[in-house]
């Protein structure tokens, strides 16, 4: 047995005699490569540290500014010109109302568009032109959507600076995100599930409704939540729409004027030159907004991880 092994080893060594080896290792070069590797590893980890560091500094600063100002009363009181009495109840309600418009509009329109593009549209040049441009829309600056909203919803449809006008504008802004996310979720549904359904005599719509959508739902929801959280944080389109600076009235219906969390932050920050304490109020509002956004993003991540299917 041992002899055999030796024979095998010597044989394999013999097949490549030192003479006809054209491949030689150069120790120096290998050491150099290992050094480069270490250099890049440090460089990249430094970039990560930089990103996280910036976030930490930002959060720390905001947090220290808000300490003492962020209390239950702050959440339940309405606006006031006296900083000690001011609260963001109206802004919270405004944001909630906005979402009542944005969520149904984007989910319905976005998913419907995605279903059409992915499942029904002929795979031709027109469809791919539309697809490309939806992706392009996702990168249009939000100010421009604000101008569109002002022209169409504010002026043309005469909705002014109401919740409806703001909600519809934000819906347009995040619609491309939902469409793209839903398209990806639909595309990820394996073809053999569709085939299984068609082979049972199911129509296209039955197949979409009963097989494709349930499988794609987690992906669609994840995209939807991320889009909505983007809409919650948007300021520019609302500023362009002309949301009033100081609203003392709590909005009661979708046609009322309103203020929202990011708008409140924006105006308080602007007015810091007049009243120093507004900076603290802005910081406290930022903390509230960030907590809401972090929570929504966490929910999106949980959904994505929990329902990720493998076939």
């Amino acid at each position, binding site marked *: 047995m041992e002899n055999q092994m030796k024979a095998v080893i010597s044989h394999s060594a013999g097949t490549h005699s030192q003479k006809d080896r054209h491949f030689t290792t150069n120790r120096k070069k290998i050491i150099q490569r290992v050094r480069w590797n270490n250099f890049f590893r440090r460089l990249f980890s430094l970039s990560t540290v930089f990103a996280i560091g910036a976030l930490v500094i930002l959060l720390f600063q905001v947090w220290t500014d808000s300490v003492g100002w962020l209390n239950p009363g702050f959440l339940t009181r309405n606006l006031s010109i006296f900083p000690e009495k001011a609260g963001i109840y109206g802004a919270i309600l405004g944001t909630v109302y906005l979402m009542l418009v944005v969520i149904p509009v984007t989910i319905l329109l976005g998913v419907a568009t995605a279903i059409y593009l992915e499942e029904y549209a002929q795979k031709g040049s027109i469809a791919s032109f539309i697809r490309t441009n939806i992706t392009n829309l996702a990168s249009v600056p939000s100010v421009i959507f604000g101008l569109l909203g002002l022209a169409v919803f504010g002026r043309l449809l005469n909705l002014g600076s109401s919740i409806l006008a703001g909600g519809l504008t934000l819906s347009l802004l995040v619609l491309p995100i939902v469409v793209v996310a839903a398209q990806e979720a639909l595309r990820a549904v394996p073809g053999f599930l569709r*085939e299984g359904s068609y082979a*049972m005599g*199911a129509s296209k719509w039955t197949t979409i409704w*009963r097989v494709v959508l349930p499988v794609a739902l987690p992906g669609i929801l994840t995209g939807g939540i991320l889009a909505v959280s983007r809409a919650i944080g948007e300021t520019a389109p609302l500023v362009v729409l002309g949301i009033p600076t100081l609203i003392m009235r709590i909005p009661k219906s979708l046609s009322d004027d309103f203020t929202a969390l990011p708008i409140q932050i924006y105006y308080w920050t602007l007015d810091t030159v007049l009243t120093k304490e507004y900076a603290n109020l802005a910081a406290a509002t930022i903390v509230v907004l960030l907590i809401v956004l972090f929570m929504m993003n966490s929910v999106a991540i949980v959904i994505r991880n929990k329902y990720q299917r493998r076939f």
Partner: protein
Amino acid sequence: MTIETKDKGIVYDVKGLNLWYGQDQALRDINMQIYKNQVTAVIGPSGCGKSTFVKTLNRMVENIPIVRIGGEILYHGENIFDKSVMVEELRTKVGMVFQKPNPFPKTIYENVLYGPKIHGIRDKKVHMEILETSLKAAALWDEVKDRLGDNAYGLSGGQQQRLCIARALAVQPEVILMDEPTSALDPIATQKIEDLINQLKENYSIIIVTHSMQQAGRISDKTAFFLMGELIEYDDTSKIFSNPAKKQTEDYITGRFG
């Protein structure tokens, strides 16, 4: 004409069938008759058009956009490509089982009742009847009766494939098309599916694509040998495997190529 073919027990009468994927012709002038309550095996090397042929029988092949079809396929005397024929209706009469088990990511219960539900059966009592008879017919009932609410993807590959057969049976088709149903399964699961096919042919006409000639020999009554998109030979399985008429058939079944 219609009555005549019914008397002979002919399910499918394929006449001059040609099929192209874009510019490539996949099926060339196929003529054959498929009989009732028999197992018809379709064999041939990879790329010979056997899968395409079977998928044409329930028009699943048309889901590929570039497909063009010529000729006709009479199903009980009616051309399935006729404008009056709805694919949804054809596919309830002609069920299909795929190469890779493809249950829906739903419960076992929901999988079997998918067909009955989409075709409008709502009665819970009928549901339970269909569930039991279909799973029993697919020889799966005993293994799953205590966990009908479990997700189908918790089953083994062989069980999943039998679930897919049960799902196909639940809409009471007349024909079952099987596209290499055991190629993703181990020998024991394969054995079970083959036994099942033997039992099912009493009530159904089965057309099965297989890359295994042994399997064709074991389970089929008739065998069709395809090569390069042409139907080379079609006869009783015993004849094909003992005394084939064509040289190409003999070369293939004796393992000289393919």
